[in-house]
């Protein structure tokens, strides 16, 4: 198993911070486009993890500004520790207002970084162990592993859930790069296709953690491929995919 230690090289840490910064900026851009402002203005209906009430659009602007500025600082390699901690605080507020897996994942990553942000430019950065950054690797393995097991337990492999998902995608006002209707027609004509596609997803989610641990470059490529395939149908997964790539980049040490 490669990368089983908690040591990281400068290049992979720099790449990680750049990707993290880009992901935070992408999240803000995504939320602007998705219309989260309308939720806080009382026009659209959002989803909350805890019923704390939606804060005003002013505080939403503060949250977005904090995330975007922190993201820019991380991407440019400026004041990384401060930026990660500021983004972590803003993400706590963001998750309380609109719960989504992508934000939960980013919050976990930011929290782990904030515990002891490594400075890639420090002379001893490669000699020291960074167990908090190793936790991010663990988190990526956990997400794929839990997702695969949850799917098997829920009977995802029958293809019914995937078909149901495409029914939802067909109702969405913002279609993916590949429209859902032809796929839905294919699943109706050949139910085995839905089951086969479901198995493919489960097998990929089980295989990627193994690849990331044993063949990190192949694993990283598999993460890119799988999430690109998901995004082709579900544009809403862009930020989640970037967050997974950010975490997976730490396997490239």
């Amino acid at each position: 198993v490669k990368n089983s230690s908690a040591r990281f090289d400068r290049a992979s840490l720099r790449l990680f911070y750049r990707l993290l910064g880009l992901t935070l900026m992408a999240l803000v851009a995504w939320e602007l486009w998705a219309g989260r402002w309308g939720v806080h203005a009382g026009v659209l209906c959002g989803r909350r993890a805890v019923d704390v009430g939606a804060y005003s659009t002013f505080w939403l602007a503060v949250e977005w500004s904090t995330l975007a500025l922190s993201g820019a600082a991380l991407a440019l390699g400026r004041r990384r520790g401060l930026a990660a901690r500021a983004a972590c605080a803003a993400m706590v507020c963001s998750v309380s207002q609109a719960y989504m897996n992508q934000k939960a994942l980013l919050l976990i990553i930011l929290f782990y970084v904030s515990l002891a942000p490594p400075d890639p430019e420090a002379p001893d950065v490669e000699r020291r162990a960074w167990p908090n950054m190793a936790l991010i690797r663990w988190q990526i393995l956990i997400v794929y592993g839990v997702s695969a097991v949850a799917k098997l337990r829920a009977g995802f492999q029958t293809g019914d859930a995937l078909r149901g998902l495409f029914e939802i995608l067909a109702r969405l006002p913002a279609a993916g790069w590949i429209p859902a209707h032809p796929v839905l027609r294919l699943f109706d004509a050949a139910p085995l296709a839905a089951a086969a596609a479901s198995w493919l997803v489960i097998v990929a989610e089980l295989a990627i953690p193994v690849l990331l641990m044993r063949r990190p470059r192949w694993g990283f490529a598999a993460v890119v491929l799988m999430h690109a395939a998901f995004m082709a149908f579900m544009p809403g997964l862009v930020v989640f995919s970037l967050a997974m790539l950010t975490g997976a980049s730490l396997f490239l040490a």
Partner: protein
Amino acid sequence: VSDDALRRLCRVLLVLNLLYCALALLVGPRIPSWGMFSRVERMDYSLTDGRGRTVNPYDYMPRGSYILDQASMAAAVSCLCRAHPELRPLRLDSAALGPAGDPCAP
């Protein structure tokens, strides 16, 4: 924080993380976890406004929102009742969400 303290803290966090995920797998979708569309309930429903026009709940939600189960559907309809009185009286026909009729009625 010393290196040893950080290492111990990270071990505890990892164990807690794994325990939470195991619990989430046991209790299912009642608590947030990494199910990733593992359960998608079939929802045959029809929602119309006071003029008989079809209402697509996704038109009133931010992009990237998904209604994956009956509870989310009920929450979305309830929000429509609150935020969009101009649509009332709404009519919801759904075997899973109770008798057909106005979901906004008290």
